[in-house]
């Protein structure tokens, strides 16, 4: 029994940043990379199922990214995933969630997992696209923003809750295999142990090209094109300066004025 967990390496911006010469993205030098916050929860959910089953569950993590993204993959392996798959091709520089989904569909064909867990969204672009697009391609049952899951490995259905607006949750059953996008707070993600980090370096990672998956650059065209990227015009807060005591005094004054105290 196998659970596939596609993860993403996200980029956050330094405090100061500059745009690339073509104005369509931020200059690479100003990006800091990390494993997507949501993916800590999807990896954890797979590991919890693996551990509860005792034996016979394999957790495979997959990432679409260049050499750099190996770090994010190893982070997931260090937590306890069994092995990794990394797919890259330079033609993927402008890939979006639908491009990644098309690649993952081929990975699913190859790996034949019983379940696929993704993060509900990425913490950099927040498109919330990859997982459900993958389900669409596969024709698999799917649910987004899953906040609770009861699933026994190999079962033909799972019971889950999806988190809706305003704290309401819907309880539903879903046919399996399925693609589920996992919400923050569904579990308490573990940190990798030192031993885990050491072991992660030795775990097998399949490095694949688009060609290996039978895909060409034209198969993974994104569903939108970026004309330009720019820093938004920001509203400017009136800054309250001075010592902490002075700042607090001014804040107290503001509160009292607005509250009519």
């Amino acid at each position: 029994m196998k659970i596939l967990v596609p993860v993403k390496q996200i980029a956050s911006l330094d405090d100061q940043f500059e745009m690339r010469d073509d104005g369509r993205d931020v200059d690479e030098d100003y990006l800091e990379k990390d494993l997507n916050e949501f993916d800590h929860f999807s990896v954890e959910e797979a590991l919890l199922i693996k551990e509860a089953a005792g034996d016979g569950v394999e957790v495979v993590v997959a990432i679409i990214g260049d050499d750099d993204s190996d770090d994010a993959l190893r982070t997931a392996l260090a937590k306890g995933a069994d092995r990794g798959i990394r797919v890259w091709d330079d033609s993927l520089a402008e890939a979006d969630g639908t491009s990644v989904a098309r690649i993952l569909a081929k990975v699913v064909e190859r790996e034949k997992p019983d379940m696929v867990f993704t993060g509900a969204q990425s913490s950099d672009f927040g498109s919330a696209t990859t997982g459900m697009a993958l389900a669409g391609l596969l024709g698999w049952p799917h649910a987004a923003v899953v906040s609770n899951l009861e699933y026994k490995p190999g079962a033909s259905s799972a019971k889950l809750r999806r988190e809706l607006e305003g704290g309401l949750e819907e309880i539903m059953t879903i046919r399996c295999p399925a693609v589920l996008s996992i919400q923050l707070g569904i579990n308490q993600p573990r940190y990798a142990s030192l031993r885990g980090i050491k072991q992660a370096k030795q775990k097998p990672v399949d490095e694949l090209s688009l060609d290996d998956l039978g895909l060409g650059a034209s198969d993974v065209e994104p569903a939108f094109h970026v004309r330009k990227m720019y820093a938004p015009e920001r509203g400017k807060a009136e800054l309250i300066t001075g010592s902490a005591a002075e700042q607090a005094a001014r804040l107290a004054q503001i509160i009292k004025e607005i509250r009519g105290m």
Partner: protein
Amino acid sequence: MSEIIVIALQRDGELRASSLEAVTAARSVKQAGDTLGVVIVAANPQALAGALSVEGVDEVIAVKATDEFQPDLIEAVVTALVKERKPSLIVTPHGVDAWSFAPAAAIKNGLGFATDVLALRREGGELVATRAGYAEKVLMDIDFPGKATVLLTNRTNVFEPAAGQGSAKVTEMAAPAADVATKHEGWKQPADAGGIDIPGSEFILSIGRGVADESNVEQFLELADKMGATLGCSRPIADNGWLPKARQVGQSGQLAASCRLYVAMGVSGSVQHQWGMKHVENIVAVNTDPEASIFSIARYGIVGDMFEIASELENHF
């Protein structure tokens, strides 16, 4: 001349208010000769048709099926509409339901696609959408070259809900066959608020990740009490169980609906949090990071340590 379609959504038979925001988004790029249709899938869609017949809507497409949310069914409806009507644009609100069906519907039909769109316009006839990136620190203008149909989800609470009496004709559409893989089993209501009333509070003191440890939470409860504020929080604080969910402000928590003064301490201001509070007239942000996005919506800002400010503030009340 082309057709624009809005996918309106209901929950348990009640129209999602954000459906009318999607109508506004769609209307903003409607060109002379375009028609605007709104599709609604429900057990009794006719009952919702009136509310959807607002100014600018030419047709309400009523699909009689079920009130249960079934992504497979909505995707089949989208596929049928794309096939039969070849719309140039489809818009639906970026709520949790759209997260389930929109990406699947888009990729199955080879549509141009973007989510969480903040603004829409035409440039020389071309559709251009704006969305945010890198955790809201940049905006991007995007287009969809070569795509006959584009599916967009519009960020909620950004577009004004469409109003004004319309005179849409109501068309019935047979529910298409769909291999439905999910079954509704019930609702889980949010835990009892225990008297905590974020939507009703005029003054909210809110804490975020900056509070760092559960043992630090108590002093902010006390400070809020002393100042006559309700203590709110951002998602990570509620997820950690440091404060009950009823105190969480944001998209998956509460809307600070009556708030006139919002003091955010150690809150970075994620889009989900901002959803619940950015409309507040007086926002004060206290954060050590001068680049935190909360400052971009605040009226007053203090770049500083929330603990120092909090303990000094206490002396004034």
